[in-house]
């Protein structure tokens, strides 16, 4: 039995996409009423929920307050039923801590934290179903939730993953493609300025190919931006109709 062919000679991936194509993205803002902001996103079979509270006073130890800007607190969790094999994931395991830290770095770069000194912004993200690109889905969901909460940001933060197979860069990897074990790059981009909020890579990739993979991820992130922008505009439209303007 031969291994999986990730990219056919005709240029199609296992699920029928071409190298640079994203999975189908569907998103909704304002899914919960009691939170300050919330959003739900589906990127293919990866589904994530983000909820934002704040800015509010520092909870717990006052010592954590920052004199010049807001504290961004991110918590990531993954539902027990999110993967094919059901596994209990205790709160605060290594993977979710790391993911929380990455999200925090990403949003500290995007949110205008200096507008709210000595306060705190909480971002909670939960992955309901995981099928590759969980980080990207979390960032995209959180962006929408932060926008929904009305917290000022420099720009959208749009994230996407990219891999590298047979000399071709693949955008938005699915779980099957991630599991194949090639290099994988996660990029969070501020599309308007083209600034990078976070760039992470696991496995080794030759320097010569980095640019190509990076460009594929950036292009995918820009595509994500187009879609998220549409979602936000539609949400604003609906909201303003309800308000009767």
């Amino acid at each position, binding site marked *: 039995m*031969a291994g999986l062919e990730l990219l056919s000679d005709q240029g*199609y991936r296992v*699920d029928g996409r071409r190298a640079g194509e994203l999975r*189908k993205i569907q998103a909704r803002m304002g899914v919960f009423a009691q939170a300050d902001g919330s959003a739900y996103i589906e990127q293919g079979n990866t589904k994530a929920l983000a909820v934002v509270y704040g800015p509010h006073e520092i909870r717990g130890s006052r010592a954590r307050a920052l004199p010049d800007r807001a504290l961004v607190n991110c918590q990531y969790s993954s539902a027990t039923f999110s993967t094919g094999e059901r596994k209990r994931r205790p709160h605060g395991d290594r993977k979710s801590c790391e993911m929380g830290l990455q999200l925090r770095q990403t949003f500290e770069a995007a949110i205008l934290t200096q507008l709210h000194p000595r306060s705190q912004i909480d971002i909670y993200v939960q992955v309901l179903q995981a099928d590759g690109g969980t980080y990207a889905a979390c960032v995209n969901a959180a962006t929408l939730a932060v926008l929904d909460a009305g917290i000022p940001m420099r720009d959208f933060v749009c994230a996407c993953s990219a891999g590298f197979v047979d000399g071709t860069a693949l955008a938005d990897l*699915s779980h099957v493609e991630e599991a194949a074990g090639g290099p994988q790059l996660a990029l969070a981009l501020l599309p308007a300025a083209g600034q990078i909020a976070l760039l992470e890579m696991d496995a080794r990739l030759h320097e010569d190919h980095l640019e190509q993979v990076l460009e594929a991820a950036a292009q995918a992130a820009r595509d994500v931006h187009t879609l998220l922008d549409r979602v936000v505009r539609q949400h604003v439209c609906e909201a303003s109709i309800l308000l009767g303007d």
Partner: protein
Amino acid sequence: MLKSRTFLKKTRAGGVMKIVREHYLRDDIGCGAPGCAACGGAHEGPALEPQPQDPASSLCPRPHYLLPDTNVLLHQIDVLEDPAIRNVIVLQTVLQEVRNRSAPVYKRIRDVTNNREKHFYTFTNEHHRETYVEQEQGENANDRNDRAIRVAAKWYNEHLKNISAENQLQVIFITNDRKNKEKAVEEGIPAFTCEEYVKSLTANPELIDRLACLSDERNEIESGKVIFSEHLPLSKLQQGIKSGTYLQGTFRASRENYLEATVWIHGDTEENKEIIIQGLKHLNRAVHEDIVAVELFPKSQWVAPSSVVLHDEGLNEDDVEKEEEREQMLKTAVSEKMLKPTGRVVGIIKRNWRPYCGMLSKSGIKESRRHLFTPADKRIPRIRIETRQASTLEGRRIIVAIDGWPRNSRYPNGHFVKNLGDVGEKETETEVLLLEHDVPHQPFSQAVLSFLPKMPWSITEKDMKNREDLRHLCVCSVDPPGCTDIDDALHCRELENGNLEVGVHIADVSHFIRPGNALDQESARRGTTVYLCEKRIDMVPELLSSNLCSLRSNVDRLAFSCIWEMNRNAEILKTRFTKSVINSKALTLSSPEVRFHMDSETHDPIDLQTKELRETNSMVEEFMLLANISVAKRIHEEFSEHALLRKHPAPPPSNYEILVKAAKSKNLEIKTDTAKSLADSLDRAESPAFPYLNTLLRILTTRCMMQAVYFCSGMDNDFHHYGLASPIYTHFTSPIRRYADIIVHRLLAVAIGADCTYPELTDKHKLADICKNLNFRHKMAQYAQRASVAFHTQLFFKSKGIVSEEAYILFVRKNAIVVLIPKYGLEGTVFFEEKDKPKPGLTYDDEIPSLKVEDTVFHIFDKVKVKIMLDSSNLQHQKIRMSLVEPQ
């Protein structure tokens, strides 16, 4: 762009896991026919012809495309590869199934698809909106795939109608499955079996021979009687192997006896390593090199390997009773000690069939279309093929592939693949020896050639990056006349401080062959250029080997230079490496005698004939060795874990026994404790009365040596090169003809910062794999060379007739002597036993290697006179025969 719907495909793997995968269906996949308005030509790469000018078929006179199913692709790939078959649609479903079932066929079909002349088009039907089908309840995967293929065929036929009604383009579905064909016809798809279609091609009758004959499993039982017991299914075999009832191993047929074989059991088991299989029924249709499962017999049924020589020469094909008689012959009474583990083949785990070279044994019946094919390799059984061109193929070397071996057939069934040419013709025999030694010799594919630099080529600014201009130096190369692949050049000049600067300049092949591309992969596969007597099989395309890389005179060429500063005592003061540009002056040696490249380390015996070594030659060689050693040190310093090096292990002392004994018989002493003392004692071993003795001793010494091999420094501890008495060694100086040198060039380039690295270069396991392949290719190239020399020697003696020559005894065996004829550098065996003659009394003495035949005693190194003639009694295996003239 993404006008797709999401589908969920649910599969159960391992019974518990539920896998959910997305499956996007698209509407932008082209049908492959140019000028199709509906698809808008939305496809690149090879496509179908708009007006297929197919070979006229009496079944389907309209222009048509072919759409084969999986089994047709798997079994009839020889037909599909024929240039006459063009315009074939390969469905993704089919391609995936082929990929899972046979890697070699998958590779072949990919090669065909990439060939633009063939107009093969791969249609991604599984992702096309209109051709995707879901598995229905109660339908198994095979049936679903069959249905998917039919749906695609139907879609194509309707789709093509839309393009042009007047064209009447058709898609013909080719399947060998009767039920599938019936269903297709019901659905209105024109469908034929492969056989029907090929037979209808009236313009190409020769294609019929290439059809694989597959007997329908169901019909098999009815016709004829069953000879062999059934092979067990794979699942049962694996179960049996796990529980220990069966053993898995590689089947190795015997060269001498077609009714006997050994199975080498895989794994580390000490006992029952080799299992003997005796008798046709127990061999149970296994073919040499197959991976089989065997059942071990109880000890009471064990047999000893028979020493009988038996060749399958029966004319009557299905005479099974006679076989049984013969099998009885094998069972001779032997002592208990001689008995070896014996068993029978119960099933085949993996067939390792390949196309075989050989000749046709024409059937006795004049009109018969069924003939037996006798492979050149005696370990392969004869193969029954069906052909109408038996009379043209008679006396030719042909290639035949095995299709299957039904239970009721004495021989496997096969089909004709290719006609190589007349027996004894130079080209034919060369082709045969290349095929039999697995030397890749096909012309370079378009994909490979596409990575060559565009002509006219000149050195650009970019090429000069990290490169030194050495064009002002007087660099020269030393080559025999007619040499076109010049790897190396030298220069020497006096420095201001009185020291000498010596440079070795090697063609910079790695500048042109970039890692990982098709050109690189092909050269890595070939591993080495193979030099035959009148032919050279290049490792890299000619444009590189004979032009751009070759350091020709008076043109600017890119080189990789190794430059030393030495004092007048030839002590090296400084070593440096650099990529460079040189302009060489050629120096041609007048010596016409360079038929083969000589192996500088082990001195291949073929070259020991009257070759005259000039001082210039040895000077060049010395500097090349020095360059190799310097480079080896440098790359090992830089990459201690993944340097590609070459070692030559010291032979075990027992290897030298024969040499010491032989020398002793002539009152000479050979010391073998170190390489140095061996060389010195060889230099001293002279006999004034017998000047040729020294050469003979040196030949014997060569025979004691081990093979030099490539290895990865991180995988081995012993780096020593015995032959050159150097602690470390590698190959750097011939990148045009050896792939190892290209890797070494890349390593060195990275070490000096002249080029960038890539992941595979620093992966020691990948490097070890490369070494393994290189060692195999080098060995095969050497065997091919020897076979080529042997063939040319035969040609030579064919024209000469019978000659008598002086010879020296090189070895003494129990029933024969091996002699060397210095005049031709030819070695041969003289047997003392002849067929149909009484056996002479032979007494063999091991201490002083000698053999007493009746009253004459033969010692090692004795001078004799032999008669040389060509034995053509077996057309496929002609050989030189020698017999003694003096002493009688």
